């Protein structure tokens, strides 16, 4: 177990260092989410309800996540570095977990900017929405990382990832919007937690088969 955690830490640290050096994923996610919120601000009629605005927040989050996921395995794909990781004697699920942690970190950074921006353009963000975002991020990182790995070995990767990811993100949208607007957000948060648990287990267990040639 200690060895597994060490492998995950080594691989996740590598991804964070790569992003710090290259700076090509997080800045793009930040620009995208702010641009999307600005567009929604002008697109939404001034007398629209808070409910509509909250829905658009979740659209922005999901598409920002998709942007980050398309970049998740770029280094491994372009330089065939997945081979190097697969050759290493670590549990292959450690690669998924480490990559998921870096995806989660990048998404969290984007949301640290996006949520105050949403409050500025639309309305305040309550605790239930923040809790929903945190739970949604976990699910998005878990399932998105698996799908990004799957897409990265495909020739039609730019098409495949959105086609696979968006249908699986529908429960995240349902849970997230529900947690943001419902009087009783508890059951929506529980739904998101269940989604996270189920998809984290499936992704963890199936990653090895996804990356095996």
């Amino acid at each position: 177990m200690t060895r597994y955690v060490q492998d995950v830490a080594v691989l996740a640290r590598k991804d964070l260092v790569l992003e710090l050096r290259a700076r090509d994923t997080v800045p793009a996610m930040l620009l995208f989410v702010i641009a999307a919120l600005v567009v929604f601000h002008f697109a939404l009629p001034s007398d629209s309800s808070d409910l509509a605005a909250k829905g658009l927040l979740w659209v922005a989050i999901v598409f920002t996540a998709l942007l980050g996921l398309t970049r998740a395995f770029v280094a491994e794909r372009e330089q065939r570095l997945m081979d190097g990781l697969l050759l290493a004697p670590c549990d292959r699920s450690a690669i998924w977990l480490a990559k998921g942690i870096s995806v989660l970190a990048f998404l969290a950074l984007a949301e640290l900017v996006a949520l105050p921006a949403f409050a500025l353009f639309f309305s305040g963000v309550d605790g239930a929405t923040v809790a929903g975002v945190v739970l949604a991020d976990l699910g998005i990182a878990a399932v998105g990382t698996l799908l990004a790995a799957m897409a990265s070995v495909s020739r039609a990767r730019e098409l495949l990832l959105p086609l696979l990811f968006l249908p699986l993100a529908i429960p995240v949208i349902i849970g997230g919007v529900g947690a943001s607007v419902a009087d009783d957000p508890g059951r929506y948060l529980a739904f998101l937690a269940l989604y996270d648990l189920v998809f984290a287990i499936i992704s963890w267990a199936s990653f090895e088969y996804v990356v095996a040639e």
Partner: protein
Amino acid sequence: MIRARTLSKRYGEKRVIERLDFDLPRGGFLLVTGPNGSGKTTLLRMCAGLVVPTSGELEVEAGRARIGYLGHEPLVYRELTALENLDLYGRLYRVPERRERIGMLLERFGLWQARNERVSSLSRGMLQRLALCRGLLHEPDLLVLDEPYSALDELGAELLDRELAELRDGHTFLVATHDPARLEGLASARLAFA
């Protein structure tokens, strides 16, 4: 060390390797030759555990921790330095006395001066030498080398000659090459693809 029986690999309808039998005993040096596209790389990738055979048996005694693989790509991150790349692999392979081992390899392959340079700034020959350092870092029992001399200048090729000669005793080699004459003296067997 390696035992293959009726080993086959297909990609869709394309037959890359068809019913191949061979044995590579511990301490052996198998030279794999053949034209481009004949299946050399696929065979090496199967033996390294990177590709799953379509049918047949393939037994490789060495586990992933005991295989050193050098492929067509150096398998190092461009945005990390040479030292950081080797440190990453050293940690994943649990290399004992990692820093000393990395330092020794970088010195031996003439990369010590460039250890803190990002890999993106290294020449193709230096990248190949760094890839050799990566493949040898964990002192593997089985060395799977795909065109190890490609991109090496004369100095790099001599360094590799010396290294292979030193490692010849006590290690098992599976080497694909277009220049078999260079390794003829070390080889114990040859597998020629048509």
